[in-house]
């Protein structure tokens, strides 16, 4: 069984925000809700790095662990989804998530006000696949159509990869072998570099 994963190659990301736009457009995500965003480290400084961040569909998802109504479920291929009919909009998942993935709409524009919204890996929710109810609450279900997340498929530099973890790691390993080293975006040099307080 495949294990679906996102990976953003920081050496390739050019901060074009194409992934953010693709996600917004595909799922008709309202203003104020960002299922995906691009974070830039050392913005404006030579050597800056950007990474595209959304729900990482954690294996042991902390959002699911803290949810008081257990509205989360994980599909067989590791996609973490939730049921908005059960969600009470408490916000515990936002505190637990290390990526800031859970979003809470401020207006009555996408699903019900106050219910949590997040990246679904373009796999919708528990409603009938690609039904009007599913589209209104969770956006389009591309996985049910045999497609992969649009953010990755739209990425012009192929920095953002989304698919079976084995296939994703094969591609990344090949790139690293060609480059002759891994990026120091999250490494020791970033965490303990000189000049930081």
């Amino acid at each position, binding site marked *: *069984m*495949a294990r679906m994963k996102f990976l953003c190659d920081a050496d390739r990301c050019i901060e074009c925000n194409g992934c953010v736009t693709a996600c917004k457009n595909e799922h008709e995500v309202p203003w104020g809700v960002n299922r995906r965003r691009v974070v830039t480290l050392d913005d404006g400084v030579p050597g800056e790095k950007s990474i595209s961040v959304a729900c990482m569909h954690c294996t042991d998802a902390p959002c699911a662990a803290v949810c008081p*109504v*257990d*509205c*989360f*479920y994980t*599909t*067989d*291929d590791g996609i973490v*989804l939730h*049921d908005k*009919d*059960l969600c009470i909009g408490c916000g515990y998942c936002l505190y637990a998530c290390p990526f800031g993935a859970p979003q809470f709409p401020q207006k009555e524009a996408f699903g019900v006000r106050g219910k949590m919204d997040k990246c679904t890996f373009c*796999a*919708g*929710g*528990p*409603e*009938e*696949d690609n039904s009007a109810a599913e589209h209104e609450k969770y956006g389009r*279900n591309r*996985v*049910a159509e*045999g*497609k*992969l997340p649009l953010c*990755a*498929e739209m990425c012009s530099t*192929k920095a953002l*990869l*989304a*698919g*079976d973890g084995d*296939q994703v790691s094969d*591609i990344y390993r*090949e*790139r690293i072998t060609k480059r002759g080293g891994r990026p120091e975006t999250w490494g020791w040099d970033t965490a303990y570099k000189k000049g930081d307080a």
Partner: protein
Amino acid sequence: MTSNIIKASRLLALAMVVGITSLSSTGCTQRSEITWHEPGVYKGSDDPLLAKQQDPQHIEALKERFIMGQSDR
């Protein structure tokens, strides 16, 4: 004229009786479909995608899609 007034007052009385009866019986029924919470157990509706993910053709289609669209050229 008088019969109309009597008719209207009877209707009004009937409406009041129905209203008072329905108000007084509010909350007397018991909901049978209560979902009891159990820690760590998802009790929402079933996602039809889960069944689809077992289909080998669907799995293969996603793998081919990845190679076609995301592998380096």
